[in-house]
């Protein structure tokens, strides 16, 4: 195996210097990997670098590879050769005394170069990553010293084994049976004793004794290498202020061997060898370059180096950075004619005038005496596509741009009356189908100003948007609208406004118990606690709004409100004493509409007129109401009313009412004739009033006469309203004045109270009603008119409304806790009509209405309830409903003695049968097989626990407008077929004293287990 070694040497002061390396004792790296450790050749000895190589390898190349691996140094790198002054190599083939060949490659160095080379090797040895590091250190002893260093290494005093234990095993002996330590000890013993003869031979033969003059270099200066600067052209470079110094190295060809040729530098300072440096501590004046020049051996080379300032950036005043566009910072400035300009200050390093001399500006306006600043005016709104740019260049350059936008100061409401509610919340007036405009308020207000506007409604680049002036907003709920100035992606300004659409108050006036005088002003009278009236008799005011709807009324704000918290459009003013009431209403923030009401004292008799009151009133038109009390049952109440009497009257809707009053003269007058008028404010279902006026003018009264005044009968100025009315009570307000007076002269002299019931149509004779069908009984009218109050539609709606009086849970009429139907009270004595609460119950309407109550109630059976419903229908002209009997269908089971009211449970086994009596009656709340139990919950009129079974039952059947089956005893929902009634009402059939139960409807018994018959014609309905 051939061997090759490096012989690097340099001229020394006395002798040549030789590069040696000291081998490690234990090698810990091999093949670029950390190893446990092995003993290398020549362990611990000073040797020449190199070693064995492949037979086919070029020894010079093999040596360079081994030197790189062992020392990290490249012998053939031009830069290294320049830096370390490495001369041309020379290959020597030698033979030892035993004719063993080996090769030595000689590399001449300068002394300084060899020193730096050895230092560099030491530096590389410390790097753990170095491959195959066989050296502990490098040295450049003189020739003589080098020869002395070669050869075997003496063992340490403690011997090689102790050395191995300490350095291989870390000081811990490996144990008595370990043989490795012995092997290693033998290896190191042998390796340290190896001969250094080849190294001695190479040095002695190839390096002469004594000092050797360095060879004269024949190298020529051929160029300059520049590091730390950027080439900007042929021999032109640019470096930025403040960086690491620019290094300029003179290049020779061939590279000098031995001492570096002398170099004379200008514009730079020589640092080491062929290198000079230029410090970057000041910029070159006005951006012009400086010359760096090297001269050597009559040759010269030069470069131009410009040192530019560092462009740090811009400081921008009076504008806001909003992003970047094409990598140019973009600023936005709000329009201002008088405000300061946008000021752009360039920041440089160094920040001195010399540096700014290098800057070339584009855009903006210069600032006198301040080369660092430029300004941009804010007095012109610019197109967002063409912002104002400022560029500062020292080659390179920096740039910024400014957009001046209009100032958005608010939102203006146009095309609708509006007002500020609070802060940015405004109300606008409702108008059906109309729109209002919201306008962004801009300075300046020019078309280009709108380009940045962006509404939250989605509209852009416009100052105006439209919003609906409808529908009404919920009170206090403001719809927000925001307009934003958006430049790029940045929202630079925005303003918002809250809009509430409020109704307008069209009018505020009185619709009951108030009058207008000759000046059209409202007045009324202090009638509370007068004329037998209760306290707190109110006049009712109504506000008319646009729109005139319940949601609109919720916006009303009242002053002098008698009912705060109510959300409708009506208010009451109590007529408790003479007063001047200033009732006001407004919608949100609008000016109030007032309805002043002067409440006057009553009976302010005009001078000379007789002082009168109402002695008697005879009604005409309409019909008498029939009495129900046991003694007078069926007698008419009649048409004549007198104070203190209850004389209810009934009329068909939309007919007229005739009144013939008789006035008692309490204090005679002086012969002055009087006018009298009676006003009826008839309360309607919707809360309004229908006003009717009866007038008697020029009623003569002789001087001193006290005889009753009896004018002729008169009809009202208008007919009754065209709807069902429950007028209980209603009051006539009687006013008088001296004949010839005006509307301000009226004084109220009496108030009379009445019960007036307006029916849907003239009454008809109801089916099977006692007495041939007469239905004008007080209770019948009172209950039916209350239930159908306001009905003006069709017969179906009328009947549904009337039947609603009987509704139980489904209709909400009954109290679910008690089963009470609070409306089922008789008119004449307020006795509560019930279903089967006491036995025997009343079977017919006449006794239902007239029989003496017990404990305040009158127990009635189904026949009475059926007749009551029929009578209530008939009172309004509906004569088709029939009284219908329900009983077990003998065709299904002749043994049946009763039917089971719904809500029974059949407990299996056996399963409930469709056609047999399968179960006995079980105790309540039990579930014994073979029994059926009745659950409570079938609530009837004013009775939570009506009977569980019946032998028969009466309901009401109607054919007009489609079949309908009513069960007024229970008020259960109307059904439209007999089968549906059977299914809903019954659970099955029963028979016997301890009833056997069966024929369960739930089990599929035919829904004809009950027979429904019209009694009058005796034909089957199912």
């Amino acid at each position: 195996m051939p061997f090759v070694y490096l012989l690097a040497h340099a001229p020394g002061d006395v002798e040549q210097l030789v590069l040696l390396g000291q081998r490690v004792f234990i090698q810990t790296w091999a093949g670029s990997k950390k190893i446990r450790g092995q003993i290398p050749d020549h362990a611990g000895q000073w040797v020449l670098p190199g070693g064995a190589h492949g037979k086919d390898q070029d020894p010079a190349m093999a040596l360079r590879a081994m030197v790189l691996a062992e020392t990290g140094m490249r012998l053939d790198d031009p830069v290294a050769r320049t830096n370390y002054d490495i001369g041309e190599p020379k290959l020597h083939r030698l033979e030892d005394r035993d004719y063993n060949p080996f090769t030595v490659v000689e590399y001449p160095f300068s002394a300084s170069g060899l020193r730096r080379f050895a230092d560099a090797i030491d530096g590389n040895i410390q790097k753990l990553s170095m491959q195959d590091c066989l050296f502990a250190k490098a040295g450049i002893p003189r020739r003589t010293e080098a020869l002395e260093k070669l050869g075997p290494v003496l063992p340490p005093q403690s011997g090689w084994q102790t050395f191995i234990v300490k350095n291989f095993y870390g000081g811990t002996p490996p144990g008595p049976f370990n043989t490795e330590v012995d092997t290693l000890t033998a290896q190191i013993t042998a390796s340290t004793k190896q001969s250094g003869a080849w190294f001695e031979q190479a040095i002695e033969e190839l390096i002469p004794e004594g000092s050797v003059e360095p060879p004269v270099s024949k190298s020529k200066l051929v160029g300059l290498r520049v590091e730390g600067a950027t080439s900007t052209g042929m021999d032109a470079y640019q470096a930025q202020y403040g960086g690491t110094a620019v290094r300029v190295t003179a290049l020779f060809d061939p590279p000098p061997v031995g001492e570096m040729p002398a170099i004379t530098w200008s514009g730079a300072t020589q640092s080491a060898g062929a290198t000079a440096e230029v410090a970057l501590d000041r910029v070159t004046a006005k951006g012009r370059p400086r010359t760096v020049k090297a001269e050597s051996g009559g040759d010269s080379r030069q470069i131009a180096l410009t040192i530019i300032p560092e462009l740090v950036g811009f400081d921008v005043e009076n504008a806001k950075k909003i992003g970047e566009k094409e990598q140019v910072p973009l600023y936005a400035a709000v329009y201002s004619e008088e405000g300061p300009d946008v000021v752009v200050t360039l920041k440089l390093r160094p920040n001195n005038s010399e540096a700014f001399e290098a800057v070339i500006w584009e855009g903006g306006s210069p600032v006198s005496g301040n080369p660092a600043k430029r300004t941009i005016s804010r007095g012109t709104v610019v197109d967002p596509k063409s912002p104002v740019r400022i560029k500062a260049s020292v080659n390179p350059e920096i740039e910024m741009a400014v957009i001046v936008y209009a100032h958005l100061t608010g939102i203006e409401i146009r095309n609708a009356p509006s007002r500020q509610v609070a802060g940015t919340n405004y109300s606008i007036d409702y108008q059906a189908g109309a729109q209002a405009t919201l306008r962004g308020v801009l300075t300046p207000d020019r078309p280009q100003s709108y380009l940045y506007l962006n509404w939250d409604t989605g509209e852009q680049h416009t100052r105006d948007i439209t919003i609906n002036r409808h529908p009404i907003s919920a009170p206090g709920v403001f719809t927000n609208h925001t307009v934003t100035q958006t430049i790029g992606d940045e929202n630079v300004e925005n303003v918002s406004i809250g809009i509430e659409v409020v109704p307008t108050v069209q009018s505020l006036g009185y619709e009951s118990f108030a009058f207008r005088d000759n000046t059209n002003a409202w007045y009324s009278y202090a009638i509370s606690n007068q004329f037998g009236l209760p306290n707190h008799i109110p006049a009712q005011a109504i506000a008319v709004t646009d729109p005139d709807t319940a949601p609109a009324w919720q916006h009303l704000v009242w002053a002098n409100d008698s009912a705060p918290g109510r959300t409708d459009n009506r208010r009451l003013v109590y007529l408790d004493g003479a007063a001047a009431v200033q009732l006001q209403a407004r919608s949100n923030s609008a000016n109030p509409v007032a309805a002043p009401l002067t409440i006057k004292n009553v009976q302010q008799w005009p001078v000379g007129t007789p002082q009168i009151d109402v002695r008697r009133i005879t009604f005409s038109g309409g019909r008498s109401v029939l009495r129900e009390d046991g003694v007078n049952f069926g007698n008419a109440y009649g048409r004549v009313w007198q104070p203190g009497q209850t004389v209810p009257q009934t009329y068909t809707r939309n007919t007229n009412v005739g009144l013939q009053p008789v006035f008692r003269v309490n204090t005679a007058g002086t012969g002055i004739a009087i006018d009298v008028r009676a006003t009826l404010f008839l309360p309607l279902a919707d809360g309004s009033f229908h006003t009717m006026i009866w007038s008697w003018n020029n009623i003569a009264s002789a001087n001193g006469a006290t005889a009753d005044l009896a004018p002729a009968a008169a009809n009202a100025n208008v007919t009754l309203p065209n709807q069902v009315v429950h007028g209980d009570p209603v009051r006539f307000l009687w006013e008088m004045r001296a004949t010839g007076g005006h509307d301000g002269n009226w004084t109220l002299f009496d108030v009379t109270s009445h019960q007036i019931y307006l029916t849907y149509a003239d009454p008809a004779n109801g089916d099977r009603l006692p007495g041939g069908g007469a239905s004008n009984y007080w209770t019948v009218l009172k209950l039916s008119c209350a239930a159908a109050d306001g009905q003006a539609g069709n017969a179906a709606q009328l009947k549904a409304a009337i039947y609603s009086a009987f509704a139980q849970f489904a209709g909400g009429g009954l109290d679910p806790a008690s089963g009470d139907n609070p409306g089922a009270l008789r008119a004449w004595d307020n006795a509560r009509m019930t279903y089967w609460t006491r036995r025997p119950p009343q079977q017919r309407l006449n006794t239902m209405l007239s029989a003496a109550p017990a404990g305040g109630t009158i127990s009635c059976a189904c026949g009475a309830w059926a007749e009551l419903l029929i009578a209530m229908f008939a009172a309004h002209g509906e004569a088709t409903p029939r009284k219908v009997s329900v009983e077990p269908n003998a065709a299904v089971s002749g043994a049946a003695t009763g039917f089971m009211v719904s809500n029974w449970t059949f407990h299996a086994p056996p399963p409930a049968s469709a056609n047999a009596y399968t179960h006995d009656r079980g105790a309540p709340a039990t579930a014994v097989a073979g029994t059926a139990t009745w659950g409570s919950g079938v609530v009837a009129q004013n009775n939570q626990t009506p009977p569980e079974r019946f032998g028969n039952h009466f309901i009401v059947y109607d054919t007009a407008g489609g079949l309908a089956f009513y069960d007024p005893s229970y008020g259960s929902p109307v059904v439209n077929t007999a089968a549906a009634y059977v299914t809903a009402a019954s659970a099955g059939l029963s028979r016997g004293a301890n009833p056997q139960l069966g024929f369960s409807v739930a089990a599929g018994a035919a829904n004809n287990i009950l027979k429904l018959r019209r009694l009058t014609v005796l034909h089957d309905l199912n």
Partner: protein
Amino acid sequence: MPDASIKWETISFDGYAPARLAGAGGTLNLYKGVISETSSDDGAEEVEVTLKAVPPGRAASVISDAEATSGVDIAIGFEQVFVSAPDWDLSLDESGNGAAVMQLFGGAWNDLLYVTIAKGVASDPVRFAGQDFSAPRLFRQLDGSYRILARGDLDGLVSIDPARPTAEPTWIGAWRSALSLDIGGGESAWLFQEISDVGPLSPVGIGAAPVLLGIGPTGKVPGAGDDILGGAPIFEFAAASSHEGVLVFATGPGGIHAAAIDVHGAETQIAVGTPPGILSSPSVALLSDGQGSFDGVLTVLHLKENLSAEGVSFARVPFAGSASPAPAA
């Protein structure tokens, strides 16, 4: 005649209307319907109405002869779906034989139950259904058999032959109530109230209507009648007859009325005064006065507000079948 001429004896009465005098001679007693209501373990209501004689107490002097015997209970066990107080009528002879008729409540309308009574023991009931029957009254025909007169909801007054339970009732007239009494000589007296057009709504009071009298051959229904009791409105009336005539006892809005009517229809008002309170269920029977003539025994119930009775008043009036009743005893 002053009211003081009639002495009313009032005793307590626990029960409901009606109360009827039944029996004859020494077996004449006032009967009431006693409702026995029981709830079995399974919660079913079992209702039975028993007709019981009311012990006369201090009224015994009015109703009884010395040898009078107290009445026996007549149990008529009907299943009633409801606990209630049905209207009924009872007819007994001195031997305790006779018949009874009673309403059977169905909830909406009422059927009728009929039993025959032999020595105080009732037979199984026979049921008559088809319409709402009220005010059932028995009248004994000459052959001793009974017929039922009742107000039918559909037809007005009908006659039912208990021996033919499936036969259609015989229509009698547009009447609301009627009694038929044998007055001898092959003639009967019919007392009835017509159904007025104004109806339940009689202008002078609910359920009140004049009582008419028609006399004719037995088995014939009079087509018309004449007002009795002065045409006064009457709520309820009762009557008893002999071959001398008819004794009528009635309640109305104006109080109670009594009259003796001879076989020719001549009427003599009997002043009986008016006991206080709500009066109901008048009943009348004849007792021999031991002198070949008869006295009339009158009873009337006093009702409480809840329609249950709290007392019954007894009075005895002379009835000789003449227009001139004897002075009070």
